[in-house]
C-alpha cells in the first residue's frame, strides 16, 4: 500500500489565488444565471407568440443551444467570436455568453411549460375583463406558473454553477483552472483537487438547501 503524506498547508500558501478563483466561479455563475434567465424569458415569449416571425426563429434558436454540447459551444465561441464579430473579448466573457445561451435555451422551455400548464381560460377571463396581455402574463399567468417553473429552474441554476468548471478549458481563471496552475507549481494534485471539490460543494450545497426551502414555500 502506498503511503501518502497529506500536506494541506500547501493550500494555505496559495489561498489568495484560490479565493480569487472561487470568486470568479461565482461571478461567472451569477452573471450567466441572470443573463440566461432574461434570455429564457424573452425566448419563451417569442416562442409562444402567434406571430410566425417570432415563433419559428426562436424555436430554432432554442433547439440549437439545447442540443449543442456545452463544451463544444464554449470552445467554438472562444475561437469564432473574434473573427465573426470582429471583437476581442476575454475568455471570461466568452464563457458567460456560452453559459447564458445554454441556460437561456433550457429555461425558455421551462418557462414555456409552466405558462402552458395554466389553462387558457385563465388568460381569456383576464382579457375579457379588459386587461392587457402584459398584465395578464404578469399578474395572472406567471404567479400561477411559478410553482411549476421553480423546481426545474433551480435545478438548472445548480447545473449551471457546476458547468462553470468547463470554462477552465479556455483558460478562464476560475476555481478549477486555478487549481491546475497551483498543481503545476506545487505538484500536490490530491490536496489541490480535494480543496477544489470542497469549495464547489461549499458554494453549491448552501444554495441547494436555500432553494429547496424556497421551492417548498407557496
Amino acid at each position, binding site marked *: 500500500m502506498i503511503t501518502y503524506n497529506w500536506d494541506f498547508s500547501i493550500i494555505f500558501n496559495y489561498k489568495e489565488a484560490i479565493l480569487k478563483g472561487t470568486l470568479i466561479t461565482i461571478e461567472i455563475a451569477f452573471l450567466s444565471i441572470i443573463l440566461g434567465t432574461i434570455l429564457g424569458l424573452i425566448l419563451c415569449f417569442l416562442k409562444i407568440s402567434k406571430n410566425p416571425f417570432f415563433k419559428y426563429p426562436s424555436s430554432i434558436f432554442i433547439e440549437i443551444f439545447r442540443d449543442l454540447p456545452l463544451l463544444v459551444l464554449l470552445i467554438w465561441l472562444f475561437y469564432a467570436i473574434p473573427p465573426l464579430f470582429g471583437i476581442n473579448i476575454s475568455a471570461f466573457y466568452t464563457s458567460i455568453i456560452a453559459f447564458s445561451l445554454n441556460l437561456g435555451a433550457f429555461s425558455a422551455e421551462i418557462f414555456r411549460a409552466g405558462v402552458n400548464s395554466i389553462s387558457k381560460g*385563465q388568460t381569456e*377571463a*383576464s382579457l*375579457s*375583463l*379588459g386587461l392587457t396581455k402584459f398584465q395578464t402574463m404578469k399578474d395572472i399567468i406567471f404567479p*400561477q406558473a411559478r410553482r411549476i417553473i421553480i423546481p426545474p429552474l433551480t435545478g438548472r441554476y445548480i447545473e449551471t454553477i457546476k458547468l462553470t468548471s468547463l470554462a477552465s478549458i479556455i483558460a478562464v481563471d476560475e476555481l478549477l483552472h486555478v487549481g491546475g496552475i497551483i498543481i503545476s507549481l506545487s505538484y500536490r494534485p490530491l490536496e489541490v483537487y480535494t480543496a477544489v471539490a470542497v469549495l464547489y460543494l461549499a458554494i453549491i450545497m448552501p444554495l441547494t438547501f436555500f432553494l429547496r426551502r424556497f421551492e417548498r414555500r407557496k
Partner: protein
Amino acid sequence: MNQVLNVKKLVKDYENALVLRDINLKVNKGQVISIIGPSGSGKTTLLRCVGMVENFESGEVVFDEKEIVKNNTEEKVREKVRNKIGLVFQDFHLWPHKTVLENVSYALINVKKDSKKEAIKKSKVMLKKVGLLDKSDDYPDSLSGGQKQRVAIARTLVMEPKIILFDEITSALDPELVGGILKIIKRLAKEGMTMIIVTHHMRFASEVSDSIIFLDKGRIIEQNTPQKLFSNPKEKRTKEFLSTIVDKKQEINVYEGYEDFQAYHIGLLKRVKSGCVGYVMGAVGDRWFECMGESYKEYEKLLKEKKIIWKWVSYKIEGFEKDVSKSLKDQLKVSLIPKKFATPSNFNIWEDTIILQTFGETPAIIEIRNKHLVQGYLNYFNLLWDFGNKINKNLY
C-alpha cells in the same frame, strides 16, 4: 334605438371546417337574447368571437354603433372593446391564486384605475349582491361550483359592462345549484341589462329572453320571440331540435318566495300555447291572487292576449264567491264541495306540466314535468269535472 352590438356577416373557420357562417345579429340596449342549438352548432364559438377572446376570419362586430372590430383589428382596440363586454364562462375561470375579493377587485384597480379603497368598496357591494360577502377572503378552491359561478358573475358585473355574454354558465354545476344562478340572471334582466345567453335550459331561455336564436351547423336558422319559436317554429330543423329536447324533458323544480312565485306564473303563461287550457283544482278564494300581487295585471293581460282559459274544479269558501267570480267571469268553474276553511294550496295542470303550489307564509311551487303524470291526473280531473257537473248545476 341604441344598438349595443351589431354582428355583420361573421365567418369563423377552424382549420378547414366552417364553424360559423355568415352570422348577422343585432342586439339593442336592454335586450336579452338566448342562443339555443345542438352541441357543436357553434353557439359557444359565436359568443367567444363576439367577446373578442377568439378571432374570426371575416365579417365585423360593431360595438355601440362606433367601435368596429374586424379580423385584423389591432389589440389596443380589442382591449378597449373587451372592457365593455362582460364574458362569463362555463368553467368560471376564477384566478386560484387570488382571494374572492381580489378576483372581483383586480380589474377595477388595473383596468379602470380605481383606487384600491374604491375598488374594494365596489367589489364588496357586488359580492353582497350575489350573496357571497362572507366569502371575501376565501380562495376560489374552497367554494362550491355555484358559489364560484356567482363570484365569476360578480367579477364581470363590477366592471359595469354594456353587455354580458353568458356561455352555458350552468352546465358545469350540480342540478340543485342551477336555480340560484338563473335567479341572478333573471334579476339582471329585470334591471335592464343587455345580455346574450347560451343555454340548454329552454324554459329558462323562454322566461328571460326577448328573442331566441336557433343555431345549427354554424348558421342562424331561426330567430323569433320565445313564444313563437317554441310554440310555432317555422323551420323544420328547429322543430326537430325542439322535439328532441321536449321528449327528454322530465324535470322537477321548486320555486320559493313571492318573487319567484310571480315570475314562474308569468313565465308559465308565456311558455304555453295560445288558447290552451289550464286545469286548476283548489279552493275559490285561496291566497293565490294575493301571492301574485301586482304582477296579476300582467298575468291577466297575458291570459287575454293568448286566449288562455282556466278550467277550474274547486271547493268554495263562503264569502269569496262574489268578488272572485266577478273577475273570473269568462273562466270555466265547477264547484264541488262547500268548505268553510281555505286550505292554502292547490294544483294545476298545464300542457306537459303539473304544478303543486302552496300559499302559506312563503308561497312555493313544485313543478313536475312528466307526460304520463299529466295524462293520469288529467283523467282524474275530467272525472271530477263530470262528477261536479252532475251534483252541482250551480256554476258560478
